[in-house]
């Protein structure tokens, strides 16, 4: 601010919007940021806003070194901004701002990477193979059971067959099934009940045997 009078203007390159790993690295402007933070601690909103705007590209460049996924990078940056906000009273304006910020950033990165590692050990991501479809063509491994069931369904009266197909196999709600078939909700209920009863008879009740 005033202390920059008399010095040649400071040239600074800031990666616009999304700074990639190959992008130029924003510099730490320690004194300016320390002054802005000191004002922010006293409640100066515009100083705080300027500070957060200025540190964000820098934090993003730090984050791209640790995370590959762009959404991870943005999450990490926001996590650091929130942490800076939560513990802004721990900054001492007589001390440099850079180390304060970098320690917070590094601790948040490490915590995030650890959490991700733990999650990776415990959870398996859902892939397209895990998805199930109501169409019989997709469920190859269930073919044998299905064959038997289809044969049994063919023996049912058409109204009952329709009700089972919509409500049980395609897992529609009563309302959706009524819209799709043109049958009333009451008749769907009656038909599905009767269909299940007769299917049980056809396939042989396993709980009794």
């Amino acid at each position: 601010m005033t202390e920059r009078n008399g010095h040649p203007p400071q040239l600074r390159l800031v990666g616009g919007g999304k700074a990639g790993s190959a992008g130029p690295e924003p510099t730490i402007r320690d004194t300016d940021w320390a002054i802005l933070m000191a004002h922010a601690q006293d409640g100066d909103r515009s100083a705080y806003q300027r500070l957060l705007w200025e540190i964000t590209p820098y934090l993003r460049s730090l984050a791209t070194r640790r995370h590959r996924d762009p959404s991870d990078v943005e999450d990490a940056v926001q996590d650091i901004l929130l942490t800076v906000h939560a513990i802004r009273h721990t900054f001492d304006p007589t001390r440099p701002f850079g180390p304060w910020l970098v320690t917070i950033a590094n601790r948040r990165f490490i915590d995030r990477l650890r959490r991700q590692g733990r999650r990776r050990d415990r959870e398996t991501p859902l892939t397209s193979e895990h998805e199930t479809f109501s169409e019989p063509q997709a469920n190859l491994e269930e073919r044998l059971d299905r064959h038997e069931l289809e044969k049994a369904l063919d023996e049912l009266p058409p109204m009952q067959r329709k009700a089972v197909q919509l409500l049980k196999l395609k897992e529609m709600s009563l309302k959706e099934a009524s819209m799709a078939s043109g049958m009333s909700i009451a008749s769907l209920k009656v038909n599905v009940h009767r269909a299940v009863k007769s299917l049980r008879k056809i396939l042989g009740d396993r709980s009794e045997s």
Partner: protein
Amino acid sequence: MIATPDLIESLSKNLKPIRRLRPPVTRAACWLLLASVVVGLLAVSQGFRPDLATRIYDPSFTAGIIGAILTGVLAAVAAFLVSLPDRSRLWLLLPAPAVALWLTNVGYQCLGDWVSFGTDGVLIGEATRCLATLVLTSLPLSLAMLVMLRYAAPLRPTAVTCMGSLSVAAITATALSLFHSGDATLMIIMFNIGTAVMFVGLGGLFGHRIMQWIAPRPAIRD
């Protein structure tokens, strides 16, 4: 997920002035003042051990007590320093010489006068009173330190809780040695090393979770 510019907008829009923390050494001194008040109150209510006047002339006993007090003071200072993001982690080594002084003298006491290492060594009535001293000293001090250092949760929770626990353990061990006559080897080990291992172990195991629980929530609108 909220966009980063929006986050910055809402954080700065809801900014409130806050009070800066006092210097770490000042805050450590405040906590140590609380510790001395707690120990002082216990001294009034429980009374010093009857043989303190004679024991105080035993150099290894005195050195052990001084070591424990120094450990308590230095570990508290280290905890308050390390809790801040811009201080070096090397401050964690600050209490190391005091710990060495404390524990070597405890070891020396045990080797020097190897007294009744048997069933007579521990008296049940004394043991329950010891437990009372232990809880009454450590509980308020741990809670106070936890509240004073809660902002360290997103930073170095484990290091800070270990240092804090070491400080609480050393002060508790001092209180136990001053109020209860247990010079049997087993008692000395229990008083000193037992409390140290117990508190630092608990701090290391649960410190992270307790800190998370008490941490200041980074709310966008506060």
